[in-house]
């Protein structure tokens, strides 16, 4: 589906984030939708495992994967990392863009299992709570991520994505 919007990672770079450099890394991308961005990353990374829940978006993701080497599609729920775990290699980067109320926990569960070096979490305030100010939601998310990882940056994705931030965190890679 062609949408004239800027992706979360592009918005993050546009907003002056330190940048996303997938060259030579193995990547897991949760919430890959039709795989537009994931396919682009697959051209630079060693491989991208792209997880998408919707079967309709999944159809587009699979079509893209057929045309792009090292784009590995999974049509399934990011809440069940054990379902796609065997497909995940030793991991460099975890990217997540899922609009779910428990998006922070989904991110941390996946990070805990796959031990990436770095994670990029797009947080959508309105998915978590519509009745709280976005700033408060972002603070909670940052605190929660900080319990498990070292938060490097938190970048607002305005104006491309209203009430969104990207949280970038370093996981120490070693087993806890």
């Amino acid at each position, binding site marked *: *589906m*062609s949408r004239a919007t800027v992706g979360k990672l592009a918005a993050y770079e546009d907003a002056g984030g330190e940048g996303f450099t997938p060259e030579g890394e193995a990547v897991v991308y949760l919430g890959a939708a*039709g795989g537009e961005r994931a396919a682009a990353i697959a051209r630079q990374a060693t*491989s991208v*495992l792209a997880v998408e829940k*919707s*079967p*309709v*978006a*999944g*159809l*587009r*993701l*699979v*079509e893209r*994967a*057929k045309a792009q*080497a*090292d*784009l*590995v*599609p*999974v*049509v*399934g729920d990011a809440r*069940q990392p*054990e*379902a*796609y*775990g*065997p*497909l*995940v*290699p*030793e*991991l460099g980067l975890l990217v997540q863009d899922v609009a779910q109320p428990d998006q922070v926990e989904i991110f941390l569960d996946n990070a805990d*299992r*796959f*031990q990436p070096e770095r994670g990029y979490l797009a947080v959508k305030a309105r998915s978590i709570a519509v009745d709280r100010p976005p700033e408060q939601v972002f603070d909670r998310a940052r605190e929660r991520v900080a319990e498990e990882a070292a938060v490097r940056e938190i970048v607002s994705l305005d104006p491309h994505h209203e009430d969104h931030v990207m949280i970038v965190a370093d996981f120490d890679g070693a*087993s806890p």
Partner: protein
Amino acid sequence: MVSRALATQWFGVFLYEDDDLVDRELFPARAEAIARRLEAVATGQLLDEERQMLDGVEDVRVADERLLTHAATMEGPVPRARQRPADHDLDPALRQEAAIDRAEAAIEAQLSAEGRHLVQAVAYLDETHEIENRMIERLTSWFRLHAPALVDEVDDGVELARLVARHDDREAIARALDVDPGMGSALDPNEMRALEGLAASIVQQAQAREPLERFVTELAREMAPNIAQLTTPAIAARLIQHAGGLEELAKQPASTIQMLGAERAVFQHLTEDAPPPKHGVIFRHPMIHEAHPDDRGSIARAMAAKVAIAARADALTGNDIAGELEADLQARVDEIQRVGRRRAMRGSDR
């Protein structure tokens, strides 16, 4: 004591002792065989290869609850993805191939499962509608004996039910509406209580329909975004229901899609001497029912042709083609109406 761990990767099962690989069971190096195992893992099953390897050992660390047998524990680290396919003479590209196989099967299963849910929900939606309408008819004609003026005042049946359920008598309702209660025969107290019960059921039915309608609309939009945009989500849901699923709908020719929902009329045409129906479910679209009666058949045929294409895109490719189809359809409808007007000007029976 040795420390053991077992890890399943996409191409095999690996057993480590004190961090050294001591045993392996590779999967057959074919995409379908691997896809089948990925499916088993996703549904929480223990693979044969895993069972074999777990059978012979004790005190083994695993990372999945799926692998928790009597001898396994989830305490401690597992070398989750240490093996590389090349170390075992395997083509790394097999990973993508197997994942695509698995994803296609998952999509198919999920889409047809969603179709089954939609079919049930739409059928129930029709039933609740029918039940609700009958109850409203009964309430209206019954309560009219008591308060004809009030029944005439309120033209929405659910609204009338709400008033009757909420207020104790004719006078209270009249006060709420700020109108004259008017005349009518008295009600026995038990009769009034029965009427209130009926009214409460109607209100409850109407409330229960809201989430049901939302579910149907959202699911239709998700399953069949092209049909939903080209027609409406409600029509999309009904077409899918009548065809018995999105895949089934995608297999139908446009001429069948045009008639879906008018099956009775089709059979009357075939067995009795009735005229052929011009449209079924798609008649609900304003483009058809607001058109001149002489044009409806042509417009229905044009719309059905576009719905057939939209259904195939929704069922098979997931491409967004609704915009193009809408423009094509609009152009065709304009043409039909232009011809219709010209015919009318020539003085035919329009």
